[in-house]
Structures are given as C-alpha cells and as structure tokens.
C-alpha cells in the first residue's frame, strides 16, 4: 500500500506578485495551488510584501514521492486527464476519484492529497 506521510510546511495566500517575489530556503518545495495560494513544504515562515497575507502552518496534506515507474504503475491508470508536459509542474485533479495533486519533476513525482482523504487514496491505489 502507498505510504503517505504528513507534509509539514507553510500555507500562504497573498497577492500573486508578493508570492512571486517570495524567497524560500533551498530545501523548500513550493507548490503554487493558485496564483495567490502556495504551499511551501519544509518552510516554517516567510516574509512577504503583503501585510494582509494569510500565513499559517500547514500539516493537513500527506504525500509520497514516486519514481516514474511507480507513477506509471500506481497513478496513471487512475487519472482521466492529461499530465502536463513540462517539468517541474503542478497538476491537480482526481486520482482514483480522490482530489489530489501531482508535483512532477524530472525523475520523480510528489503525489499529495488532504490528510482527510489519505485512507481513500491509499485504498484505491493498492
């Protein structure tokens, strides 16, 4: 069964230009869920040029890093939409009927979903 682990980070909703200019640590994986919405995995805080930005700790996503072979075997048969061609890129949609996201990089992919769906995703990708 897919082992999904909690992804610790910071969730930020801010003006898109402020998010564009934000600087993060080298180990931080920043996923832009939307132009004004980012999940910075591994981050603990950030400085932004937006005094009204919402910056909160986020522990409600779980995920697993997959090799390309694992992605092909476990995930691709369960998605009904085309993956983006570019890398890195974030893809969002249903995986086996569960709302999930794929952070696609060269050679490996982070599959993540809200923790509330972790059991469903794990069960369905068995």
């Amino acid at each position: 069964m897919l082992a999904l682990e909690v992804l610790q980070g910071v969730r930020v909703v801010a003006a898109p230009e402020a998010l564009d200019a934000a600087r993060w640590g080298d180990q931080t994986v920043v996923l832009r869920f939307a132009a004004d919405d980012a999940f910075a995995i591994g981050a603990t805080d950030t400085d932004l040029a937006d005094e009204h930005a919402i910056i909160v700790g986020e522990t409600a996503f779980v995920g697993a890093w997959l090799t390309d072979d694992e992605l092909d075997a476990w995930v691709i048969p369960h998605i009904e939409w085309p993956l983006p061609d570019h890398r890195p890129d974030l893809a969002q949609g249903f995986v086996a009927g569960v709302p999930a996201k794929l952070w696609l990089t060269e050679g490996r992919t982070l599959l993540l979903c809200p923790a509330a769906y972790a059991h469903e995703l794990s069960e369905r990708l068995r």
Partner: protein
Amino acid sequence: MTDGRRIILDGRPIPYEDGDSVAVAVMRAGEHPQHGGTICLAGDCGNCAAAVDSVAYVRTCQTRARPGLVVRRHPAVGEPALPAVDKMNLAGYAPAPRIRVQREEADLVVIGAGDSGAAAATNAERQGRTVTVLDAHDEMEVVAVYAGPTIIVRTRGGMLHINAREVVVATGAAELHPVCPGSSLIGLVTARAARQLHAAGVHLGVAVAIGPAPSGVPSIPLQGRLLRFEGEGRVMGVVMADEGSDRERTTACDTVILDLGNSPRDLLSRMSGDLPVTVVGPAADAFPLPECPTTGTVCPCSNVSVEDLQGVWDRGFRELELVKRASLVGTGTCQGSVCLPYVRSFIADRTGGIPDPFTARPASRQITLAEAAAGVHIDAFRRTPLHDEHIALGARMDRFGGWWRPWHYGDHVAEYWSVREAVSLGDVSTLGKLIVSGPDAVEFLERLYPTNIADIRVGRSRYALLLNERGHLMDDGMICREAESRFVLTFTSAGASHAEMWVRDWVDTLGLRVHVLDRTMSLAAINVTGPLAGQLLERVGLSEQPRFLQHVRAEVAGVPCHVMRLSFTGEMSFELHHAVERSVELWRSLMAHGHDLGIAPHGLQALQALRLEKGNVIVGMDSELDSTPRRLGMEWAVKMDKPDFIGRSALARTAQLPDDRRLVGLTMPGMAPIEGSPIWFDHEVIGHVASSFTSPVLGHAVMLGWLKRAPFPEQVEVDGRSASVVRPPFYDPEGSRARA
C-alpha cells in the same frame, strides 16, 4: 485437432479446431449456440449469445474457443439465472477480478478496419493526422461512444477509454435476418456465416440458398417468395411461392443460407448525437428496407412478433420511438440490429413515410457490471483525524456531508444526558472554516452577509445566515473577528464546499482586496459542551475562558487552539479549533480529565436532538431550497437597514407578498412522529414535519415543521394526534444555560 482442444458445452466436452470461435465450434458439433434462430457469425444478432465462463449474453461468434472454456446455453424460455448469493456469507465469495482501465488521448479514431475504415485511416494519415484504428477482430471492441467524444473499448486486457478529437465509424453493414414463421429453427445461416462455416470445414448438409447463393458454398438456389421454414426444432424444409402466385413449393434441406439484403451497422453513430462523428462506407449507406413483414418474429431478442407491433400500433403508438417503447422491440441483446429495418418497414407501410432509425444508447454490447464500472470511483468520503478514536469508542460511523461521522456510540440517549447534565465531546472537525483577510474584508463581508459586520468587535463573533440573490438560505455559521481586517468564518459541514466557492466567486465579482484560505481540512475541531464544560477546560489549562460569543487563541491541554464560545446544543459550549495532527492528543486529554465529571462523547443523533430542543435549524434538513429568513422565522438575523447585501433586494420585494409559508415549532404528548410526517388541518395536509424527537428532558415530542397554508392554525394534527404550534426554542428559552 488434439484432445486438449475442447470447450465444455452444457457440461459436455466438445472439440474445436484452431481459429474456431465458440459459435463455430458448437455448430461443428452439430449444435446451436442457443436453441435456434438465424446465425450471422458477425456479432450483429443475439442468436448465438450464451453464458461463457459464467458471464451471460456473450456473443459466442465473437469469442475465441480455448481449452476448458465453459459455455452454458441460455434457457429456451426466460432469462439466464443470476448467480445465487448467500447474503449472510458474502465474505465467502471471492471478489471478481478487477478490470483494468487504460486511458488514452487520440486525434482521430476509426472504428472498423474493413475497406472503408482502412481508406479513412489512410486518407487521414496522408493529411498528417494521428489515427487509431479499433476493430473487434483485433479484440478492440467498441461498446460505447459518449460525449467528448469518449470511446469505450473492451479489450483482451480490460477496458480502454479513449478521448478523441474526432471519430469515424466504418463498421460496415449487417445482413438481414428473415421474418416469417419458422425463423427460430436451427439450421438458418446468413450468406457470410455460410462462407465462414464452409471455410472452417463445418458440414452444412443439404443447403438451399435464398437470395444470391454464396460463391464456393455448395447449395441449391431457390427462387420466389419466402413463406416459411418448416421443421421440428431443426429446419427440414423451406416453403416458397412464385412471385404473384399463392402456389407453395416445399424444398427439403438441412441448412438454409439467407442473403436477403443488408442494413447499415450504424449503432455507434446513432448513440453519438451531435458529437464530431462521421460515418463512412456501408455503415452510411441507405440500403433499401425489406418488405413489410406480415407474420413471424420481428425481434428475436425481445420476442416481439408482427402481431405485437400491430397491437401497439392499434393502441395509438405510431412513431418509431413510441413503438419501440410500447412493444420493447429493439431493446434486447442486439439493440435493434436485427429488427430495426423491419420495424421501419412496418411503419413506412402504414404511414407512407420511412422513419429515421431510433436513437441508440450505450452500451452496444452486453458488458459486465465490472466492465461498466471499471475506472469509475464512488465518492470519496473524508475522515476526521479522530476517526479511529470514534471507532475505538464503539461509534457507528455513517456518511454525512462528505465525511464519515459518528452517528452514535451505542446509546444516543445517554449521550444526550451527558450533554444536558455533565460534559460531552463532539467531533465538529467537519465544519467549514475560512480565513478572510484584507483591507476590504469588512466591506466584503457586509456585502456577503445580511447581518452587520463592522460592529463585530475583535474577539467577538456573530451567527449569520448566508443567502443567495433570491434571498433563500444557502448556509449558516459564525463570523469571528480576529483583527480589524481578518475574520474566521464557519459553515455547515455539508455546505462548506459550496460556501467556499460562493465566497470566492463574490470576491472576484466584487473586485475587492480580500484573501481567502479554506482551512476546513486543515483544522480539526472538538466541541466541549455541557454544564461542566468550563470546569473541564479549566482543568486542562483554559482558565481565562471566553464568554458567550467571544473567541480567543489559547493553549488547551498544551495544544494551541482557537477557542470559540457558542452553543448549538443549548448548553455551555466551546469549540476548540486546532491543527489536525494534534487532535487525537487533545481528545484523549479531554476525555481523561473529564472522566470523573461523567464525560462521554456524543454523536450526530444526540446532537440533532439537542439542537432541536433549542429550535436551531439544520440547513438542508429543516430549510428548503426557497426558504427565506421570514419563512424560517429568522428575520432577526437580517438587517434590512443595511444599504446592500446579497439577497437584500429579493427580500425587500418578497416582504410585500403574503406570508403563506412558515417553519414552526410543534409539540405533542407522547412519542415523536417520524420526520416527514404530514401535518393535517381541517382534513387537509398543510405541511410536513422536518425534524422530530421525543425530548427526554421535556417528556414529550418536539418538532420543527412547515406550515404551507395561511392563516397558520394554532392546533394541527400529526400522526393522528393533536399537536400545538409553538414558538421555539422548546428548552431554556432565555438561553441562560448557553450563556452560563
């Protein structure tokens, strides 16, 4: 042939040759795959359908014979039996093998690899297009074309779903079957089937040919008009008459080869509607219809005769689609491939006009439930971080509003009393939670909600309705002000997703400087409720407790929480919103520290009773799609003196209309009637019960119900008993317990 090449037909092994389909193997053994009827060996009719390896309605002409394949003929009368399942012992059955689904994107899909399909593919490739060709002979059997267009293909390895830009249907033509007495006998084959059988070395005996005789197949050509087939089970003779004459001629035979003409094999194109689907080749040809049949079976699949068609015609069903529905012609295994030309001819004969073919719907082939469901997922239901705690406490979990939630923990009345008399925990993690922040946050919320926002002080909260433009209730929840320009909004569990979209839509529509973050799944929440709730929270470190409708950030049992003081149950209540990963720790600490206070968790069943005693509405359960605040008796939550909010103009307009619908409180002695019970007055139904419960603390039934006829009476009848219309809340009307 080797001894290993045998299939099992009705429990008896029969041999087959290399390349045989099951149908050919069966006919080689001198049998019929069913109990009679014309064989086409092209997959067009249902006359060779049998149960193959326990799957019924498999076209055996499209199934390769292989060692040990188990074939069971359908009964001559009635349907094949469903597998017997012992419902008490479902665990004893092995799950059906999972059908794999492969998904592909394609430019042009050509269905059919015959001459016209190959030509279409070649032409498209010359134009630089990428072409995917699907043909049943290559075990790529297209069973449906859906909007998209999406093509559903049954393959040897499972199902294939292809999203295509364009589709070409090149499926050729089907051969006409005879409609006359005796058409269900064994020994009738189409010309193409005869050629196949002859090539496979199947002995046809004395064969006669009606229509052009197939080249290379020994047969005696017959001339004239076909009247009937004769025989007992198997054809023994054909009765013909010369054109223009009634004189009958009978020719003895073992096999009748029929070439009566063709019809377009266009089932897939007829289910394509206005999709980008092109039909080419014989599938697009307008073949002449056969003569109108006068007697015999038109639709062998549904056993519809000419007399049956005449019967529905005489009853006034005179359009093709109506004739189909009234007689069930064309609704069987072959979906009209055999009967459609004859039904069109039947109607043309009576109306003088040829009707268009009837619409086809997926699937064109009998597919198993597993194949149909392959790749389809049921809704995913969320779990709160306390899910396993609930299970360990004996909860009966059920699905509500997209979440698994505890309905009860074994005794909902005991849970009720723990709230009313001691302290109890409820898992309210499922509530919607949004953060709204920005310089225009106040202005935005003033436009969004019908209540005042600007006067909510930091650290205070307010209950609010969420209305749509028509002034109808969509959702409700709390507005908590955290800072001058920052708020936390809560919504109902079931309405949270829609509310989030609603909020975001209005942020965009109004063009205001507001950030929105949905924290519904990021934060868990525990409701600590009951007269001893404050005492429990003091034990776990919350000494500075917020007063009613206040909220604070504080640590509870070492867990950072956003503590909201409110009440849905009617008792002192504190909602502790906290990060999901700390939820189990917090729950366990509260349970442990409340042990001597009589703490127990409560499920939704108890919660619904508690809130009903307080007259608190559950959106979607007590409210209807067109419930306005006036109808709900909640005008106090609407500030019409505000210059604008969503739904204001509709409320101003409808306020002038008669007040003819109202959600009211009802009480009656004894047990509560079931929810949905009709409310009677003066021998007429004037409404229904939305929520009901036999109140333990009050000792009688309490209800919320709709009265939909003015003037509203003060006494009504429910469940054959008299009920009083009252103004809720039923319990603690002053609210002193919640504010304690």
